[in-house]
């Protein structure tokens, strides 16, 4: 009737957080596991997307502007490029954040560096996305 193994202790669940972290609602680094997960999810989605990007670059090497327009006018290409831009810049933002947090120790410099980098990343991501849309539409 009871499917639980009686030799083992009470049923447990595995939570990827320390107990102190759960109490505080934070992980050891002062943040939750959201960053870690997002980095992995974007990494996995970038596996096929970066292969697509490499293929696109080969197809578009030496292309004229008309060639670029024709390529992006293909809905699948525009969609895949937009997905690539989202995953790429998101992954970059998460990765660079870890690098900055590892090497910049002064709290004020760390905050300033992160704000500048993340601002630049959002700027570039938007510039890329709008450019793809302009070529596509």
């Amino acid at each position, binding site marked *: 009737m009871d499917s639980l193994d009686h030799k083992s202790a009470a049923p447990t669940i595995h939570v990827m957080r320390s107990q102190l972290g759960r109490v505080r609602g934070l992980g050891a680094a002062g943040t939750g596991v959201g960053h870690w997960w997002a980095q*992995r999810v974007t*990494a*996995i989605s*970038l*596996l096929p997307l*970066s292969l697509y990007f*490499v293929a696109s670059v*080969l*197809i578009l*090497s*030496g292309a004229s*502007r008309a060639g*670029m*327009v024709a390529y992006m006018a293909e809905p699948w290409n525009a969609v895949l490029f937009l997905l690539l831009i989202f995953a*790429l*810049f998101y992954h*970059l933002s998460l*990765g*660079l954040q870890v*690098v900055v947090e590892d090497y910049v120790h002064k709290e004020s410099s760390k905050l300033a560096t992160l704000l500048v980098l993340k601002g630049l*990343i959002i700027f*570039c991501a938007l*510039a*890329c996305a*709008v*450019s*793809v849309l*302009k*070529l596509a539409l």
Partner: protein
Amino acid sequence: MKDARDALMVGRNTDGKLVNRPLSPHLQVYKPQISSALSIFHRITGCALGAGTLLLTLWLVSAASGEGAFSVVQALLASWIGILILIGFTAALFYHFCNGIRHLAWDAGKGYELPVMHRTGILVLAATAVLTVGFWVIGFLVW
């Protein structure tokens, strides 16, 4: 001393003077090995690719803005310095791609045994070389 964490890092040297203990991983006494070299290389290529996204942005924005801007950027990328940067960019991309798969396998708890880790490390380097050379052979053929 700023906080408790700092207090734990204070020690005395052989003269009895108070000093800050060196921070792990003690690079000055570390033997260079493939595991640590590939690890820091993953980070370096990640940062390089981050710089490379500026090129991607330049390429897409110039294409969107018009014929003149695009031909300037295309000519810049096709110059010898542009090609050199792009070769570095593709090598960094393929390395980060291959080593990233290795990292994802570790996240799944696989491939931690030292012989396996060394083997996959060498495999990453070989795959990077093959993919980079392959890309440029195809690139120059279709160009």
